[in-house]
């Protein structure tokens, strides 16, 4: 279940694209899985079933948000994203492993900063205030760290 939790979070995030939205989606997914659990056929794969439910909930969420904001991925793109996510599962898992290795090579302070940003993404302004920095400064540093990690992953995967 612990593994499935992170998997469905990652699926939801890929569809809605935003951390806060992904959290909303996961809450809704939990409710739906709870409500529909007796429809789950025990002979089938729970993880696949949970993924399908997650995708449907995330798709509905993305549509609603698209209507509210006036922009967002169309259904065709959402379907392609979903297909890519489920089709490339092993590749993405490998990339995550490499990303974890790259994280381990970051200086302790950078690791803490990165974790704090990802924990506080919905209130980076408050976080910036705590640090006595501007939000833009925080973003600039975040961008730099992301780039370093991306380069590290690319390099390691390239070598392999």
């Amino acid at each position, binding site marked *: 279940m612990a593994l499935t939790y*992170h998997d469905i979070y990652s699926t939801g995030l890929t569809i809605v694209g935003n951390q806060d939205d992904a959290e909303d989606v996961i809450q809704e997914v939990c409710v739906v899985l709870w409500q529909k659990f007796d429809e789950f056929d025990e002979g089938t794969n729970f993880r696949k079933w949970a993924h399908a439910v997650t995708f449907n909930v995330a798709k509905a969420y993305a549509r609603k948000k698209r209507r509210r904001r006036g922009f967002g*991925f*169309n259904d065709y793109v959402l379907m392609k994203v979903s297909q890519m996510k489920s089709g490339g599962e092993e590749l993405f898992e490998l990339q995550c492993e490499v990303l974890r290795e790259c994280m381990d090579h970051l200086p302790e302070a950078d690791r803490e900063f990165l974790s704090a940003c990802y924990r506080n993404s919905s209130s980076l302004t408050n976080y910036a205030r705590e640090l006595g920095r501007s939000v833009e400064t925080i973003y600039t540093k975040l961008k730099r760290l992301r780039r370093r990690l991306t380069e590290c992953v690319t390099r390691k995967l390239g070598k392999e």
Partner: protein
Amino acid sequence: MLSNYSSLADEVQALADQLFDGRIDGPRMRRLEALIENDLACLQVYVERMTYHGELVKNAEVRSPAQAALAVMREFSYAVRMHERRRWFAQFWIYGGMVASLLLIVGGALFFTGAFDPVPVGIVAGLSDDAQFSSTGIDLGRFVRRGEQITVNQGMISLQLSNVLVDVLGPASIQLEAGDRMVLNAGSLFAKMLPGANGFTVSTPDVEVVDLGTEFYVQYTPVTGTQVSVRQGRVRASLLDWKHAPVNLLELTDGRSAQFQGAAQLVREVVYQPEVFQPIDQSRGGIQRIDGLLRTTPRIPVSLQSEQLQTTNHMLVIPERQNVLLDRDLVIPGEGEPVRIPAGAVISSYLIHYDPKVLATLAPRGAVTFFDEIAAVTATEEGLKATDHLGLPGIRFESNKFREFEMDEDEVRISQDRKTVSFYCGVNPGEFLDEARVIVVAKTKGVVPAP
């Protein structure tokens, strides 16, 4: 080329980061959408980037993965406990029920030998998507038994009896007396005898209708009495008196209708109205039987575009244009060689439509059996477009390519006698609009794959 890809990948990553951070605006979102819609490599970069963010969120989690999941698990454990409890009760009732049934059977055999015999007389061969009954457990493929009463609150149920297909249109109530005999207590029904068969009898408080090889309609209300209309063939209708004995006999043939009122001892021919058969033509057409998670629909849809006619945990089979005489060859492209149906053939078209709602939780699968032979099933975008003209007049179809069945996951199979087509949509609930079209040929001569 490589640097071009690299710059696009960088752009996708930057836009994905902005989306993740909640800092993206409309034009940039549209740019991101265009990039990932039109370029597979960009799509992969986007998904990689979001997976990467997901991993960083997971790493930033103060709780361990197990702790993070614990909150969710608490909710699940409750659901599982309830599930187990329900299963235990179900088993208790099943085993208890088996023992009780055994006792009843033994007791019944001792006291009512020969008298207690609720044998199956047919099966449920079709249901409309809006069908509702006063009792539970009525589903496709279920046996219907002698003496059973079925009350249809709304929608339509099709019953395949020994030699007749009966469609009951709700609100209605029927009682099955035998495989060839039925009582209509209220509402209306349509009966279509299988080729070569006859003798099916429908009775109402006013009349007893004996079929002599035909297709007919019976409607009964306590106020207006019984109306019988014959579309094809011949029926013998006997007006009944208060003792339920026949007092007057009328034979009706093609295109004739009559009104019967038992209380007033009244029989009179009335104007034949072919539109009384419209609900059955619209809902069932030439379908003999459906199975699994397929349903018919009594409503003519205006639009079949995405999200306009949604289905939950079932697929719809919609009769389209029927008995069309082809004045030129019809070539239907598909996954393999195209199918060519030559000019002169009489064809009917049926659309399989699946557009799940948000919370679809079952993978739809099912089968449709037709009276005539299937000439072609097309589930590709190209094939659907080439045959959209066989759709109902004025109907709007989806123009985007995601309408086609994803054939790598979904399977469509035609039986050896070419009368049944089965749809199997993988193991997971569906996500988007999927459609396929079945072309049935009344005259099968000369249907060959094109060279």
